[in-house]
């Protein structure tokens, strides 16, 4: 903890950053903190409780536009950062990233290459509860699964916390807000809620870091992160690991399978 404070303070004192995005103690769990000077870094904390994906703030123009940014990033935030680089949303020279090494030390990650190496070397944090629920859903018949998701998604009231918490949802105009033509019903109803979630998940194909922030953010506790999780698995099985060549739904190769269309 002190180590991160020292490092962040140093960056301010050397004039290398304008803002540091990290965590401070919150009501129950650590919450985002934005330090704008050396003094404010002294509230920073960074530990295994810091699971919210801070990468979501890296594309917030009102917060970081034109600024050099330092950030403490959890495992999944690093995955999101790597993806944001691939999507040309970040500049290496204006970003200082810190991860948590396997022996819980602060580790500076100075380039996309180093972030990728970290992700290769570090096992993802376990998600025991999710694994249990995924197993249950996998064992359902398709009718049972339909009933499960219809029931869950009927509760959605479209607060869009899932979208707001997602580092990959950085569009300035979301598809649900397009009304000429209106692709998705904007009001809450089971069908419209499904349309929204199916769209959200499709837009995440090959991009999602599987951080689970969408599910954590959902105030009614709908496990929507399992949809993106399943999508990540499906993409991996069919198209391999994500690469810098682009995302599965925005690239084309002549040898792509078309069997699902015909």
């Amino acid at each position, binding site marked *: 903890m002190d180590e991160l404070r020292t490092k962040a303070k140093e960056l301010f004192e050397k004039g290398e950053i304008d803002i540091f995005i990290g965590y401070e103690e919150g009501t129950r769990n650590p919450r985002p903190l934005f330090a704008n000077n050396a003094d404010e870094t002294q509230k920073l904390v960074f530990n295994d409780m810091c699971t919210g994906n801070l990468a979501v703030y890296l594309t917030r123009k009102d917060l970081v536009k034109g600024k050099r940014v330092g950030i403490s990033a959890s495992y999944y935030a690093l995955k999101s950062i790597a993806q944001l680089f691939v999507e040309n949303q970040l500049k290496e020279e204006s970003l200082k990233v810190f991860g948590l090494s396997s022996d819980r030390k602060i580790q500076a990650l100075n380039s996309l290459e180093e972030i990728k190496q970290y992700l290769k070397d570090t096992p993802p944090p376990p998600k025991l509860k999710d694994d249990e629920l995924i197993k249950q859903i996998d064992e359902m018949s398709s009718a049972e699964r339909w009933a499960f998701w219809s029931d869950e998604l009927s509760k959605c009231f479209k607060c869009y916390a899932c979208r707001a918490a997602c580092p990959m949802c950085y569009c300035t105009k979301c598809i649900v807000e397009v009304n000429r033509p209106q692709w998705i019903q*904007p*009001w*809450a109803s089971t069908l419209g809620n499904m349309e929204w979630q199916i769209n959200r998940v499709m837009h995440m194909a090959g991009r999602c870091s599987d951080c689970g922030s969408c599910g954590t953010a959902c105030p009614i506790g709908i496990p929507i992160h399992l949809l993106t999780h399943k999508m990540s698995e499906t993409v991996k099985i069919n198209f391999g690991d994500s690469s810098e060549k682009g995302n599965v739904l925005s690239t084309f190769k002549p040898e792509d399978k078309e069997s699902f269309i015909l």
Partner: protein
Amino acid sequence: MNWLTQLNDEGSQIYAPVAKGNKTDYKHITSMEEISMDHIQTTQSAKAIAFPRTEKLFSYTKKEGNVTLQNFDTTTIPETVVFGIHPCDAAGFKPLSGIFNWDTPDLPFNERMKRTTLIAVSCTQCDEFCFCTSVNGNPGNTEGSDILLTPIKEGYLVEIITEKGENLVNKHISFFEADPNVNKEEYLAKVPVQFSLEELHEKISNMFESPVWKQQSERCLGCGACAYVCPTCACFDIQEDAHGSSGNRLRCWDSCGFSLFTMHTSGHNPREVQSQRWRQRLLHKFSYMPERISVRGCTGCGRCSRACPVDMNIAEHLSEIATL
């Protein structure tokens, strides 16, 4: 519980807290076995009883240039009993009513309220997000309820607040006994006061340009979770559910926290950044509503703080403002 069964048998629709996983919410129940009262706070407020998340205001059909309108049908609203809401939720119907009767009385809201009886249950437990006592409420507050029940050693202490409540009790008087003569206070949760309402009011109406809005809202993600779980937030959007020559005009929940909420057709947005939207949220609740409709837009239920993905703790923020 036998009382509720009887009300249900007589045709009233009963809404009560039902637990699923670690969340509890109001549901239409048919068996009293479904009710769960172990929670501190339901995830959502009970406002949807009178202000549904999506409501059909009217329908229309066009035929050869003639338009026929089918107005909101009040006869479809069933008699409803809401059981188990806490005093902070019952109190929320007053600010809602203030908004829906400011200027033009709102037919759907008022008709739903007319047919709704609120049987509230006092709070015997609270958590660090509860702050009803800071906004003139308390865990045994009777305001807004038709009947208030306080769990005591054996059964409930019953307080009849309104005529509606009295009618409901008189109809089934056999379920009730004489006043047990207990001290209600002893059974109530102790909710600490977190800030002075007077100091808050003094400050908040005069700090439109304060830097505090930006500082507090930096981490706000701009979703609508806080507004949608709030018992008093009443912002709505009007949508068209059109199918060729017929369709429905719908009213659905909206939130001042969304950037789209104030977006003009021209592209201009008077509340361009999140700090302006956060300011609007707090000023609306603690300045504009008290000034215009003489009721605060907050009952201290703490739901917004619990629902927020980034811990925008409203009581903490209000405390900060009160002591500026």
